[in-house]
């Protein structure tokens, strides 16, 4: 029982990181109708910058800011410099360019920093806290949880309570009509990319201390999980990303804890297959979300 509590609570924290990254994929899908396969590589670049900031200043807060700002700027550069020049009638060319971007960025990181993992010590302890005698989350997990929730709530407020959010949603739902109504649709697409890349960078920054450390491929598995989650939830659905992230996080944690870490990817694959068999559009998808 103690073990279950520990595994579930750790799974929730891991799941929220996955959810954050999945959310970043959802944001970009809604803004630009593209699955950004380059998201993980871009986020890793931003986290390298965060590492540099951390090494130079010793401040974790500045490192977080560095990741967010670099993420946003990368989003800006990729959208304005690459994606805008790709034909947008079908999603395929954009996706192929994104995959190319992954290769370029990962190779560059490999050339610059080599293959070794750079460890990052977490800002808070990773040993579990106890409620009574029952081990639950570590302080760091708790920190991840709080940050993820703050970001999710913040994004929710931004999209649902602000005029910028209204424009982002309008531009995502019906770009042509939005243009007629005076919404600057290209600007909204750019902002969507910037938001998305910043959130992804934050997710990877939160992830790295719980893994081996940082290298060019640090976020690859996270991307696969988050992509799974985004598809599970329906690429259009922020709520789906959140719930899906939690489910996958807890599933991985339970399978790893009770069976073996090697089975976790199979469990995720099994979940994905089952959901797609039952609800091909994703659990929370509105009907045309994945046909675009």
């Amino acid at each position, binding site marked *: 029982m103690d073990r279950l509590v520990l595994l579930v609570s750790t799974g929730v924290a891991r799941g929220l990181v996955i959810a954050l990254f999945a959310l970043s994929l959802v944001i970009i899908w809604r803004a630009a109708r593209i699955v950004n396969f380059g998201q993980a590589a871009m986020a890793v670049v931003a986290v390298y910058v965060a590492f540099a900031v951390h090494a130079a200043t010793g401040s974790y807060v500045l490192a977080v800011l560095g990741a967010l700002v670099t993420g946003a700027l990368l989003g800006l550069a990729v959208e304005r410099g690459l994606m805008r020049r790709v034909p947008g009638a079908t999603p395929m060319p954009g996706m192929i360019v994104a995959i190319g971007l992954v290769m370029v960025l990962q190779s560059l990181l490999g050339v610059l920093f080599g293959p070794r993992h750079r460890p990052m010590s977490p800002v808070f302890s990773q040993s579990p806290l106890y409620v009574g005698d029952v081990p639950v989350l570590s302080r760091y997990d708790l920190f991840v949880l709080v940050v993820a929730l703050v970001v999710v709530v913040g994004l929710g407020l931004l999209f649902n309570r602000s005029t910028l959010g209204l424009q982002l949603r309008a531009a995502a739902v019906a770009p042509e*009509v939005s243009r007629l109504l005076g919404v600057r*649709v290209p600007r909204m697409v750019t902002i969507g990319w910037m938001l998305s890349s910043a959130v992804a960078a934050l997710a990877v920054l939160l992830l790295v201390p719980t893994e081996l450390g940082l290298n060019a491929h640090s976020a690859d598995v996270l991307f696969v999980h988050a992509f799974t989650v985004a598809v599970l939830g329906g690429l259009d659905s922020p709520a789906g990303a959140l719930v899906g992230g939690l489910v996958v996080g807890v599933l991985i944690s339970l399978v790893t804890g009770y069976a073996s870490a090697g089975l976790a990817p199979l469990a995720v694959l099994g979940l994905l297959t089952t959901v797609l068999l039952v609800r091909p559009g994703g659990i929370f998808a509105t009907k045309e979300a994945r046909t675009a």
Partner: protein
Amino acid sequence: MSRSTTPPTAGSRPSAGSRPSPGATGRPPRLEVDALTVEFGGLTALDDVGLTVGDGEVVALIGPNGAGKTTVFNVVCGLVRPRSGSVRIDGRPAPATSRLADRGVSRTLQGLGLFGGMTAAENVLVPLTGRPRRSADGERAVVAVLQRLDLLDLADTAVDALPYPERKRVALARALVTDPRLLLLDEPAGGLGADDIAALADVVRGIAAAGTSVLLVEHHVDFVMAVADRVVVLDFGRVVACGTPDEVRSDAAVEAAYLGLEAAR
């Protein structure tokens, strides 16, 4: 239905400037479409079309399906590039699509184009978001226009859940909320019942009385006759007649092109 053999009735073929709108005082008309020609592939969708809409005037653009009515709208809105001809709004060339709202132009769409997943009020707020921020004014404008179109009780309802006539009114409210100087209505009466059409006619007349110019595309002849100051008839992309509703009603070319068909249905 003779497109090339029947010459247009005398005086019915307008050319720009030949038919000053009522009340014109030497200022350029609100909307001036001149010698517009549009081709899609080999098909001539619009052929030398000219029309004007003056201040506070309601002009109806009618004609059979495929006559090019919506294409005129699309050119005015910058969605379709003409092969030749010009569109001027208040004497200046028509702006890019996303600047239309800044120039006081609003448009409704045949398919409504409402934002799914948003409430009625959110839909109506969208056109105000791109403008310099004054959110309290925005809220007030939204409430006012919803009230005017009897939608206030439905403000927080998701548009997807509304019946068609209400959805249609939300689309109209979204076009009106910016207080446009030129309003383009694409089939505003389509799909509505008699009561809704009567209410719509009141709204359109009210808008025009307040000084807004209205250009509308409509199949519903009674509605057109009730609200339009002038009617422009398109057939096969050409203007075949233009005049007051009564003049157009008695025009032989129009009967052949449009009203005859309508009566024969």
